[in-house]
């Protein structure tokens, strides 16, 4: 178990910079997710920690020790691959014992450890089978067992759930997290799936185009996105153009076309200056629809339901609010509002976040709507 630290790590492949000056700390025993779309550099970071790629610049520290030049086989890491990467010509027992063999663990002891590892992943007694005789989910458990049996300093998980089907994925998600919790190994999990990241992580590092966009606890990243990219990547967010009209240490007042004036607590607009343009981020589930007048403490606007995506227990509405469009997600009891319905949308200002507008170089992700 060890803390992992990236110190302004950069990785270039020819002309392309896959990771730009990443400074990230993975705390000892924590479960951290690197989240981002494909090509954002998250897998490259994982591969650099594993030693499968060498950083172009910067240092990687594990347990305070610089490991840039340490060969892969001396790093004592457990790596779980998306496609499991079990050795097809070896039995499950041999697969799991593989790392123990190269650590000089005596055979009898290795056998016990293999059995324990199989119990941890809840697949006891499959030692003598071959990987192809197991299902995808079972193979993934074996890959996990193979990685944790060597008691690695760090467990690296490269999209380990994305090859599984949806139900199994959710099941494994809970299980993986509970195994990690039980053995307490520092874990770094790479995924492009925001719900996996939110469900499993102690901390999330959101990446885009090789850069770290935001780092924080799942609810922090979700509720107070630091950039437009993060706002859009996690959950369904609405972004409205706004302008700062007044600000002090406690409150920030914004003017929007759709909702008029609203006042946010300062911590919801921490990155905003005291004047100038801004973007108001409203989560789709924080937009409330009603036919009656808006409840007190909210701001509201008249809207038209342009389309409805009915999903049983909830519905996603596509709304026209004046000149702007918005999405709202609501629990329903009874029937959803029909298309064309005139409704009142309301929101509580303290549920919103305000950001500076994306800079023209587009580093905060796509803009406009």
């Amino acid at each position, binding site marked *: 178990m060890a803390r992992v630290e990236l110190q302004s790590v950069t990785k270039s492949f020819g002309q392309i910079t896959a990771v730009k000056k990443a400074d990230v700390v993975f705390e000892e025993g924590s479960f951290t997710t690197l989240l981002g779309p494909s090509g954002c550099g998250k897998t490259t970071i994982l591969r650099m920690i*594993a*030693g*499968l790629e060498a950083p172009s610049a910067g240092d990687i520290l594990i347990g305070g020790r610089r490991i840039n030049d340490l*060969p*892969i*086989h001396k*790093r004592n*890491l*457990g*790596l779980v*691959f998306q*496609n499991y*990467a*079990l*050795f*097809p*010509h070896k039995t499950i027992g041999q697969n799991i014992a*593989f*790392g123990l*063999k*190269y*650590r000089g663990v005596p055979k009898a002891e290795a056998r016990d450890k293999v059995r324990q590892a199989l119990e941890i992943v809840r697949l006891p007694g499959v030692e003598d089978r071959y990987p192809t005789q197991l299902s995808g989910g079972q193979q993934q458990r074996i890959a996990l067992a*193979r*990685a944790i049996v*060597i008691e690695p300093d760090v467990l690296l998980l490269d999209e380990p759930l994305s090859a599984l089907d949806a139900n199994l994925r959710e099941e494994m998600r809970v299980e993986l997290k509970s195994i990690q919790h039980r053995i307490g190994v520092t874990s770094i999990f790479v995924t492009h799936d925001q719900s996996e990241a939110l469900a499993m992580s102690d901390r999330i590092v959101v990446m885009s185009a090789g850069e770290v966009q935001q780092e924080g606890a799942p609810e922090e990243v979700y509720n107070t996105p630091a950039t437009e990219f993060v706002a859009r990547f996690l959950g369904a967010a609405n972004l409205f153009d706004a302008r700062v009209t007044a600000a002090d240490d406690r409150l920030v007042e914004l003017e929007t076309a759709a909702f008029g004036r609203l006042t946010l607590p300062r911590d919801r607009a921490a990155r905003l200056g005291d004047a100038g343009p801004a973007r108001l981020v409203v989560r789709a589930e924080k937009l409330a629809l009603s036919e009656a007048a808006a409840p007190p403490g909210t701001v509201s606007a008249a809207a038209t339901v342009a389309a409805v995506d009915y999903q049983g227990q909830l519905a996603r509405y596509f709304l026209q609010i004046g000149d702007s469009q918005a999405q709202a997600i609501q629990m329903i009891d009874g029937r959803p509002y029909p298309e064309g319905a005139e409704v009142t949308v309301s929101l509580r200002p303290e549920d919103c976040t305000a950001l500076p507008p994306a800079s023209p170089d587009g580093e905060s992700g796509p803009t406009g709507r």
Partner: protein
Amino acid sequence: MAQAREQDLRPWYLLSPALAAIALLVVVPMSFILVYSFYENIDLGLDRPAFQFGNWHELLTDSYYHVAIWKTLRLSVIVTVLAALMGYVPAYFIAFTRFHHKWLLLLLLIIPFWISFIIRTLSWIHIMGNEGVINALLLWLGVIDQPLHMMYNEFAVVVGFIHVFLPYMILNVYVSLEGIDRNLEPAARTLGCTPWQAFLEVTLPLSLPGLAAGCLLVFVLTAGSYVTPLILGGPDDFLFGNLIYDAVMSELNWPMGATLSFTLLVLLGLVVVVYSRFMRLNQLTKAFG
């Protein structure tokens, strides 16, 4: 009941064109050869239909033929082992290179097949002959003052065989290596293997089917050939195939030629059957597919 029987026959209907072709083009001609082996050779090119075992008796008693079988097996093993050793490295390189135009490397491997292999074999005369490139260069450099005799011996035959059959080995090993999951070696490395250990634990065992298929092909191709020793070998460098050539082309003794041909077919057929059982060569079909 009737329907069940009809269904049982369906695979045979589907197979029948292939079976007919094999029967017509393989089984029937081979039967002719077998029948021919019982004929009697009276004079040059003159045979008498008969059913006698003179030819087979000669084959089993004349040590000349046994020596030829021994020479053939020995040389085939030498060529196969050398081809395996020399073929694995380029196959590994082609399979694992990060070079973007892999097809070019594979094309380079296949291009020689566009030239008749007799011409390719003859080219060695210009390379290793007394007035060939190597001798000319060494003489010019003053390393030697007499040309080296590299031609018309077993060495030249082995070189010729390797030259012609190496691509078969490389392609088979390549196909096998290409099918290996690229994450397996990194997986082995993170678990504590050095690069060489990872190769021995993962890549080598998983490429064995291709290596085995390549070995079988090279062995059978070598054991069945006669042109290479004819062009590059000396008087003692003959294979079993050369005896067939001599019997049919020089002595015009077709019944003996038929006997020898059938013997070679059975011997190599046995090698293939035993070997495929032993090595479980489903890889062979993959390589040709």
